[in-house]
Structure formats: structure tokens, C-alpha cells
């Protein structure tokens, strides 16, 4: 099966003269996979997600999503590609404050004809499809849908955000620490709802978190500090300046990387691993 995501010799830095933020030699994610990307802040998680979503471009290397070479597409085509194929969930404040719940959920259909068509293939109207998704995510209490989004609890907001990301069945779902503001019980429930929907839609899920307790729920775990060689390269000079009173967020990376290395699972695609090898994934459940 062709991978949904394929990274090759990827290098990214924010400005031309700056240090590499992300350096990944190879990464592949296959269709329908539920990938857990774990790493402390500063390990390049958000940058990786920006690259996968086609918002940022690598300076070197290749990035393919759904067999589209994102690094070779024009900005407009990448925006269109994201609208059509990617659902994105932020850590917090996912909703447009001036739109109602239903309008928030149906928002992707305003930017993508394809997702509109796919949503309408499932339900007679966009509103009906939004309600169907919300009901699956346990948001079908009467009266709730008329509330302004600002009056929802954080957990409810994240579920509305999930419904929006799922509308029109995008092939790839990217979640950037969506559970970090939920308590433990709700965290698990939210992830299970997300899994069920992804399975129904046939979507691939890339889930980023710094919370290692969640990784058992996923098919595969990726430890970004191990995969991202930029972090390793930086660690040496950073360590030397660690006595300085001001601690940059990057400074937390090396120590976290060390713990991550200790807990390395068999499923992790180790840095520098050749592409052929990383293709040998464990069979999905």
C-alpha cells in the first residue's frame, strides 16, 4: 500500500541563516494508520505539522502527502490541497467565535468543493452531516447547538473541532495536542471517539502530544527528538550554555530526548533509518 505521508532527507529552518529546526531523513505513514508523535515542546512538532499541512515548505528534501509532492506545488495549490484533503485540530481555541456550532463544523465546505461533495454524499444537507458528526461525538443534547461557541466547555469545543476536521472525510487528520487541556478521563474518551470516526471515514490520523501516557492507544509511536536530527545537532552547544539563567524552550529538548531514547519502542522509525527499512511496518490491527 502506498504511504499517505513520505518524507525524505527533509531539512527545515525558519530563516535562511538560522539553524535547522527539523532534519528528518525518512518517515513514512501508511493509509489508515493512527500515528502518535511524541516529543517535548521545541522538538519541532508544530513545525512538522505545518510542513505536513503544506503551510511551510522545507528548504531541502522531499515531502509527499497523498502522493502529492508538496515541496513542488505552488502556494495556492497547497492551500487547495489542504482544504480538500486535510482536517486539522488545534491544541486550543479551535472555533471561530462569531460562527455558531453548525457553521463552525460546516466551515471546511466553504473552502473546499470536494469536501462539500463528500459531506453531501453522506447526508442530505451540510447541516444534517454536521449534526450527524456532532451526534457521533456525543454533542446532540437538545439546545446545545444553539449556544454560542464561547459558552461551550473546553471538551465540547474540542469535539466540535474534531467534527469540523472530519467533515467531508479528509484522508489525513492532523491533531496538534488536542487533548492537553482535557482531564485524563475525557482525554481517553475523546481519543476513542476520534479513532471511531477515523475508522469510519478511512482517515489517517497524525496525533501529536507530549503526554506519553496516550501512546498505548495508537498503532505506532514516533519519538520526534530521536527522529529529528536537528535537535541532536543542537544539543551539544546548548548543553554548554545550560548554566545560563535564561532557559530557551529548546533547552528542554535534549533531556527529553534522552528519556525518549530510553523508552524506545520497537515500532519507532529510528533516525537515519533507510527508507526501505522504515516501510516494514507492523501490521495494523
Amino acid at each position, binding site marked *: 500500500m502506498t504511504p499517505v505521508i513520505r518524507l525524505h532527507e527533509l531539512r527545515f529552518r525558519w530563516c535562511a541563516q538560522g539553524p535547522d529546526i527539523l532534519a528528518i531523513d525518512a518517515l513514512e505513514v501508511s493509509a489508515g494508520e493512527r500515528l502518535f508523535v511524541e516529543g517535548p515542546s521545541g522538538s519541532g512538532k*508544530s513545525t512538522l505539522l505545518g510542513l505536513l499541512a503544506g503551510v511551510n515548505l522545507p528548504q531541502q528534501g522531499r515531502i509527499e502527502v497523498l502522493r502529492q509532492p508538496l515541496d513542488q506545488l505552488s502556494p495556492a495549490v497547497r492551500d487547495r490541497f489542504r482544504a*480538500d484533503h486535510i482536517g486539522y485540530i488545534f491544541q486550543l481555541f479551535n472555533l*471561530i467565535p462569531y460562527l455558531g456550532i453548525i457553521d463552525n463544523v460546516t466551515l471546511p465546505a466553504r*473552502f473546499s468543493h470536494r469536501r462539500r461533495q463528500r459531506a453531501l454524499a453522506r447526508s442530505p444537507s451540510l447541516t444534517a452531516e454536521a449534526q450527524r458528526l456532532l451526534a457521533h461525538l456525543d454533542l446532540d443534547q437538545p439546545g446545545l447547538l444553539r449556544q454560542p461557541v464561547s459558552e461551550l466547555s473546553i471538551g465540547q469545543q474540542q469535539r466540535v473541532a474534531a467534527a469540523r476536521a472530519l467533515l467531508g472525510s479528509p484522508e489525513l487528520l492532523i491533531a496538534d495536542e488536542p487533548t492537553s487541556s482535557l482531564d485524563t478521563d475525557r482525554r481517553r474518551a475523546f481519543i476513542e471517539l476520534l479513532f471511531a470516526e477515523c475508522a469510519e471515514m478511512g482517515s489517517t490520523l497524525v496525533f501529536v502530544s507530549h503526554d506519553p501516557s496516550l501512546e498505548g492507544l495508537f498503532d505506532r509511536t514516533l519519538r520526534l527528538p530521536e527522529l529529528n536530527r536537528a535537535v541532536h545537532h543542537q544539543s551539544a552547544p546548548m548543553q554548554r550554555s545550560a548554566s545560563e539563567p535564561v532557559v530557551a524552550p529548546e533547552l528542554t529538548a535534549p533531556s527529553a530526548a534522552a528519556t525518549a531514547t530510553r523508552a524506545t519502542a520497537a515500532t519507532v522509525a529510528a533516525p537515519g533509518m533507510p527508507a526501505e527499512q522504515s516501510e516494514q511496518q507492523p501490521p495494523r490491527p
Partner: protein
Amino acid sequence: MAILRLALQSLLNRRFTALLTLLSIALSVALLLGVERIRTEARASFANTLSGTDLIVGARSGPVQLMLYAVFRIGNATNNISWQSYQEIAAMPRVAWTVPISLGDSHRGFPVLGTSSAYFDHYRYGRNKPLVLVKGERFADLYDAVLGAEVATQLGYRLGDEIVIAHGAGDVSFARHEDKPFRVVGILERTGTPVDRSVHVSLEAIEAIHLGWEGGAPMRGLEIDAERARRMDLTPKAITAVLVGLDSRIATFALQRRINDYPQEPLLAVLPGVALSELWSVIGLAEHALLVVSAFVVLVGLIGMLTALLIGLEGRRRELAILRSLGARPTQVLGLIIGEALLLTLLGILTGVVLLITLFALGQPLIEARLGLQLGLGLPKLREWLLLAAVVATGLLVGLIPGWRAYRISLSNGLAVRL
């Protein structure tokens, strides 16, 4: 289109600030349009006051001043024309008709105009429209008066009512010709000109009420009662101005020169159209200043919008990131902000136009009574549309500034939200 709907929803969410911004734009647009409309209506109204008259003749002063007091009853004559000179002008070749005008008295603030019945025959306004009596007839008796429409409605006079004329043009006058009251015999149709605000009597009547007033006030022991005055010689000694109509327009300049060079008395003859354009060149400066000031007020309104949008943008970085994650292009983010500016400007203009028309409709009776101006209540005309288009274009340009900022933010920040 989807973006414009989003812009509308975003504005509705911030309805309080949006409403304030909209209101400031609406008020400034109403001011701009109001100035423009009053300007054009005033010009049209001035141009419509007199037609068919080839020359206005008066004592030597300035052309604008002569026209202002003779036709528009604004200001006072500095000097009079002798009856002798009037007779000679009337007898000049090519002169088809003359209308003598004698001003200086008033009735409760309305000017009293002494004239002959030639006034009703030859005075024309608008597009060559003659004066029409809606009630009664022209003055025949010495103490008859014909009222303009506004005088009659505002003071509630009917045919047969008695009125007393006051000496001097002021609203409040201490010297009144109380011994010689006038009877209302006719009321003129509304014209939208100063005629509506005039009380018309005969030249002889003006002469009669001033018998014994040679010193400017009644002299004790010299009072002449109304009946005795009838038997005296009431030929006027002087008049204020003359409206002259000619057989052929070609003769206008020759006659004008002849009157201006009149050896017996310093006289001035002006062409109404020339005097009017001279007036515009004087007033034009003030008009333009007013228009420029109101244009700046519109600019201030739009800068208020700029401030509101720019401040709002700081709190909307998260929203921009969400839109980007949904596949919105940076140009669509630009479009969202410009769309908000456009909606605010358009709604502001709409409110402003409605506001102006409402104000004009409410103020119409008062303005017409005070100034004799008829304000058009219609939709904007071509020049006004051009002004409005300029406002929209400026609004779009102003919206470009926060729009460009949002564009930069969404390009550089991408999905990362740096608060």
C-alpha cells in the same frame, strides 16, 4: 462570496464597534451629500428665480449687490433711481417692457414690494413661468395688497384681511404705517422664489404711506390721513430698481452701455446671468471649502474604521490561523478583512443616504419657509453617485491596510499562533 458572508458574520459578532464605525461613516456621508445637495439646490433655486428679464437697472453699486437686493431681497439698496430716469429708460428704443420695483418697507419681517401691474404681466421665473393668482385679483385700489404664498400660509392671511406695513426692512420695527392699513386682495401661487415671501402693493401706495414721513419718521402736525392721501399727487419720486425686457436680445449690450453711461444720474445695468455667475465665483470658494471639509470628515470616519479593524486584528490571529488550517489562501484572508471594510463602508453609505433623505424630509418645511429652498428628496444624482463611489474606493483603500497586515500575519505565522 463565502468570504464576504464570513466577513458579514464577523461584523455581526462585533456589532457594537461595527455599529459605531458604521454610524460615523453614515454621518460623514450624510454631511458630504447634504453639502453637495444644498449647494446644487441653492444654485438651481437662484438660477430659477428670474427669467425673461434682460437687464436689471439700479443706482450705481456692484452688479452682485444690485441683483441680490433687486431680485433676492438680500441686503439693501445704497441709492435710488429718480422717477425721471425711470421714465427715460422705459422710453428708450428696443425696450419692450419695464417693471419698476420699490423696496424698503416690510410686514412682520416679509419685504414689501411696490410695483406696477406690469410686474404680474412680465415677471417670469423657472422656465419662463408667469405669476399666477390662486385667490383674488391684482391690486386695484390704493390700499390693496397681493401676498406671496409663503406670507399667506405662514401668517394665516385670507382675502379681505387687514395688514399694517412697517417702516424699514427689519423683523421688528418701531415705526409703523398704522394710519393706512392695507387689505389683502390676492394671493399668488407658490413659486419657490423670493416672490413667495413678498407683499406686493402699488408704487402709489408706497408713496401714500410715506406722505408726511419725509424725515424718515412721521412728523407731528403733518399727518395726512388715508382718505386725504388719495386726493394728492402720488407719482413716485424715486424707485429702487427696474427690471427691463427688450424686443431683441441683440440690443442688450448696446442698451446696457447706454444706461451705464447715462449722463443725468449714475446708473448700473446688469445682465442677470452675468451677475449670477459673478456671484458663484464669489460663493464658489466657500462652497468648495465646505465640500473639502466634509470630504475630510468622511476621511476621518474611514480612519475610524481603519483603527477599529487594526485593533480588532490583534485579537484575531487565532482566527486567521484557523482559517489557514481550513485551506483559506492568504488572499482570502486579505479578502475577509477588505470585505469587512467594504461592508462597513457600503452599509455606512446606505445609512447615510437614508439619514439625509429623512433629515431633508423633516426639515423641508422649515428650510423652504426660511430660505425659499426646495430640497430634492430623490435618490442621489450623477455627481452624488460619483462622490459615493469615491467614498467606496477610499474605504477599500483604507481596508487594504489591515487586510495587508492580516495577509502578512497569515503568511508568516501559518498555523502557529503567536499571541
